[in-house]
């Protein structure tokens, strides 16, 4: 039996299995960066991927979106195998990606950035809901996307994937480089979207932030998952986590 499959799920994950990754390997050209990643996520969970710089967290998300040179293994989303799909078709199965560098387009204004990702299924947030969650985006509607502050750009990068009807959101270090008050806002926003039934896979290095939003944490090292901790066991596992994360 696979490592991830043997790990027990905490009571929080009541939904069905929405994502099953088994033995995922990925390469950038000749360099082999993922060495058999396995993990599961249930519908409605917020799960983090923790790990040091270079552990392979971003690569795991990119491999899920078909954005690495080559990948092998199995990625089942809603029971459907996506390992062989092109990245636009993966998105259309209902997965949305918010990259680490945020990916705000300089030549598009805020509204154009917000409206860019095509709606792929019903059930996404409406514009009015998005403006309630992110009032700044309405005020800055006509500004070029990259003229926003770092925090506003991060909000925009998340807001635009809430519209599309995707059920699984991949967020790569949304707290990175932001002031504590903005990080709190992002935390509140992640809890708000969890309330609405979204499933989130969150890449983080900051587990203090991660523990305020997540149900479970996977720990990565050298392109593999090496541990899994339920959020309620976090306090008793701090020593172990410190060691993994080098903090």
């Amino acid at each position: 039996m696979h490592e991830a499959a043997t790990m027990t799920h905490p009571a929080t994950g009541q939904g069905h299995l929405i994502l099953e990754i088994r033995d995922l390997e990925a390469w950038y050209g000749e360099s082999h960066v993922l060495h058999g990643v396995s993990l599961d996520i249930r519908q409605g969970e917020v799960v983090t991927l923790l790990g040091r710089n270079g552990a392979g967290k971003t690569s795991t998300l990119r491999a899920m979106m078909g954005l690495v040179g080559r990948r092998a293994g199995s990625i089942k989303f809603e029971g459907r195998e996506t390992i062989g799909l092109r990245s636009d078709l993966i998105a259309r199965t209902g997965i949305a990606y918010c990259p680490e560098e945020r990916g705000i387009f300089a030549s598009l204004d805020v509204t154009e950035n917000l409206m860019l990702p095509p709606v792929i299924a019903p059930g996404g947030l409406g514009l009015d809901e998005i403006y309630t969650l992110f009032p700044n985006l309405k005020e800055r509607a006509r500004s070029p996307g990259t003229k926003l502050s770092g925090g506003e750009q991060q909000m925009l990068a998340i807001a635009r994937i809430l519209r599309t009807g995707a059920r699984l959101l991949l967020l790569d270090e949304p707290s990175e480089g932001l002031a504590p008050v903005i990080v709190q806002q992002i935390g509140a926003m992640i809890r708000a979207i969890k309330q609405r039934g979204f499933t989130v896979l969150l890449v983080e290095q900051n587990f203090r932030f991660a523990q305020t939003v997540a149900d479970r944490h996977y720990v990565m090292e050298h392109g593999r998952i090496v541990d899994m901790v339920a959020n309620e066991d976090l306090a008793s596992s701090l020593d172990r986590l410190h060691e993994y994360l080098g903090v």
Partner: protein
Amino acid sequence: MIENLLFELEMAAPQVILGLVNGAFYALLSLGLAIIFGMLNVINFAHGAQFMMGAFVAWMLLAWAGIPYWGALILAPLLVGAFGVLIERTMIARLYKLDHLYGLLLTFGLALIIEGIFRNGFGSSGLPYAPPAAFNALNIDIPIMFLPGYRVWVVIASVLVCLATWLVIEKTKIGAYLRAATERPELVQAFGVNVPRMMTLTYGAGVALAAFAGVLAAPIYSVNPAMGANFIITVFAVVVIGGMGSIMGSVVTGFGLGLIEGLARVFYPEASATVVFVIMAIVLLTRPAGLFGRG
């Protein structure tokens, strides 16, 4: 005094107008190149050949099928654009993962092949294509000059098409996809957009713009296999001056350099053939990204 001035104007006006007509072609051609380069990162050296194909298709439509100018203005860009789509799918698309240079070499080779085929089939002396008589209504006949109505139309048509293209790119949803995919194609595709198909259609649209310019040119220049090659050298200079990939830059620079060439013909004819390249050298030395280029 006044008579002197009138005489000067009489000398200058036709050259300036001729410059504007050339500028109309520079603008259309460099616009297509800019769109293709922005999205595909390919310098389309076949652009001149595709311009020439537009003129030839107009000629064929008239000579072989009796389809007049207005029909050709719509049909020839569609047909040549479809040919562009075929080329992108079967050849250019295979080169995206490689260095820019491969796209340039491929399209350069294609240009030579296409021109060779047309020279074989039609000779190099050129075929006549008469503009519809209706354009005489646009003739401008004032004391200082006579300007054939068809040339007035060329300038109007070019301005309209450039403006429409700019509007589509800057103000529509399709344009937003295009701008976004020019910046980060990978991310746009990860949002669920079929970027490879966008690239194909963009190439087709750029080629269709070249063919449209070719149809406009057919009644002015004789329809011949070298007509594109003659133009394209100057157009590449225009693109370099305006800034590779800049939409507005290519249109403004196209018209501007046409005018400058015309003025040079009046005031210093010896320089008229080289003024564009002198400007190109100066721009490259002082603003390598071009007048409107980013970076």
